[in-house]
């Protein structure tokens, strides 16, 4: 019984139909959460004593950073499941997670640089975390690139899954080595406010933002995967039926 459920999970059609129903309430919810969290953080949280208003970028920056790392593992796990149980859906999730993850990593880097200008006086500093983020972006990009250049879809999926799995071993190693490299060089020129010392009135919106980012991440992953499903299953009967019914709806 349990296995039947598991294999259903691997069916793109099942996923598409199920998520169609979820999306009706999940999409508004996550967008609302995000809006509330960001407005609270960006507009209503108190001004920081040292950094003034520029610290507010943290509400965009930090959750994105946390998620881009978590997203990598999600991607790798999806790839692993696809490889082991030879299912289609996890591969699609993996590809979508690569895109969403790369976007989040890029967002972290961009907001970080923007934040760096008022605080560090430069857009880029060779700081351990920055380098790690940059490398993570490369890891994402390599998976996206590999997926795009492969001539055959199935092979591309498997190749990406192998790369993602090898990456899981490597990401912690990269993280540690970068950190370790940094400790050997001179210490940071600027110390950030540690998250422990953060004032609750700033912390609560941050927590809300993190939750909202998680929801939003799930939402974008689902949307991306649905698009991927339609693209890959375009020739199957159920998709063409779906397209037919939708186009007849729009005609009415």
């Amino acid at each position, binding site marked *: 019984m349990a296995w039947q459920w598991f294999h259903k999970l691997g069916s793109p059609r099942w996923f598409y139909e199920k998520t169609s129903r979820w999306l009706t309430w999940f999409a508004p919810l996550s967008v609302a959460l995000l809006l509330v969290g960001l407005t609270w953080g960006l507009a209503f949280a108190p001004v920081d004593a040292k950094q003034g208003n520029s610290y507010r970028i943290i509400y965009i920056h930090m959750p994105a950073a946390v998620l881009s790392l978590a997203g990598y593992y999600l991607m790798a796990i999806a790839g692993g499941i696809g490889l082991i149980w030879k299912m289609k859906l996890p591969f699609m999730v993996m590809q979508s997670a690569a895109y969403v993850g790369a976007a989040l990593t890029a967002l972290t880097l961009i907001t970080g640089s923007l934040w760096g200008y008022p605080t560090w006086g430069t857009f880029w500093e060779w700081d351990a975390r920055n380098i790690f983020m940059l490398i993570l972006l490369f890891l994402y990009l390599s998976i996206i690139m590999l997926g795009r250049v492969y001539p*055959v*879809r199935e092979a591309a999926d498997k190749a990406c899954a192998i790369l993602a799995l090898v990456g899981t071993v490597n990401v912690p190693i990269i993280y540690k080595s970068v950190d370790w490299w940094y400790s050997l060089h001179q210490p940071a020129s600027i110390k950030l406010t540690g998250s422990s010392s953060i004032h609750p009135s700033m912390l609560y919106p941050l927590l809300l933002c993190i939750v909202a980012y998680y929801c939003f991440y799930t939402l974008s992953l689902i949307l991306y995967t649905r698009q991927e499903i339609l693209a890959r299953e375009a*020739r*199957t009967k159920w998709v063409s039926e779906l397209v037919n019914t939708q186009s007849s709806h729009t005609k009415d």
Partner: protein
Amino acid sequence: MSQWEEPAPNELSISNLTCTREDRVLFTQLEYTCCAGAVLQVLGFNGAGKTTLLHTLAGLMPPASGVIRWRGESIAGNRSYTRSLFYLGHQAPVKPALTVAENIQWLARLRGQSPSAEELCSALEQVDLEAYQNTSCGHLSAGQKRRVALAQLYLSAAPLWILDEPFTAIDKEGVGRLQQLLATHASHGGISVLTSHQPLRLENLHTLDLAAFQPDEACAYV
């Protein structure tokens, strides 16, 4: 040669095989059984799926559906099947920087054989390359390069041969000799599956035309 003395009869059976390339069904519901001593020539127009079929038979590609059995066992993940197989594709696995003899040797070693000097010589003689033994393969003509790869057949003890267009670029006399070799292999109880657009002159030649297994319009795509 040890495999040949085994009691289980050589038999390759294909049941209900469907192969696809990028969602397009090439052929479907293919049923065929090759018994010991058969030479099977797979026919079909360009793009019919002959190479795909041979790849699938060699276990290099999983079929979309259906089962292939060797001596009654499915070939999926079957290592003993791999060992009783000799496959030669479109391309000759011949390194231009190595000499003819060296090329033959490494290919044989890879399959776990270590041919003696005499065996090597006789194989070279069979493919008419004695004079080129120490020539590096980059200096051979197209047909001679193919012959280096074909020399493996004279060394191989595998009961099942899968050959994709083995006659490409081979001259008339070479084609005749190769057909004779196939006949000998068959008479020892071996099986050969090959593709060729040329008609063959062999006694117990079976043909399999892939055109007969084309899918109907309705299920041309999975």
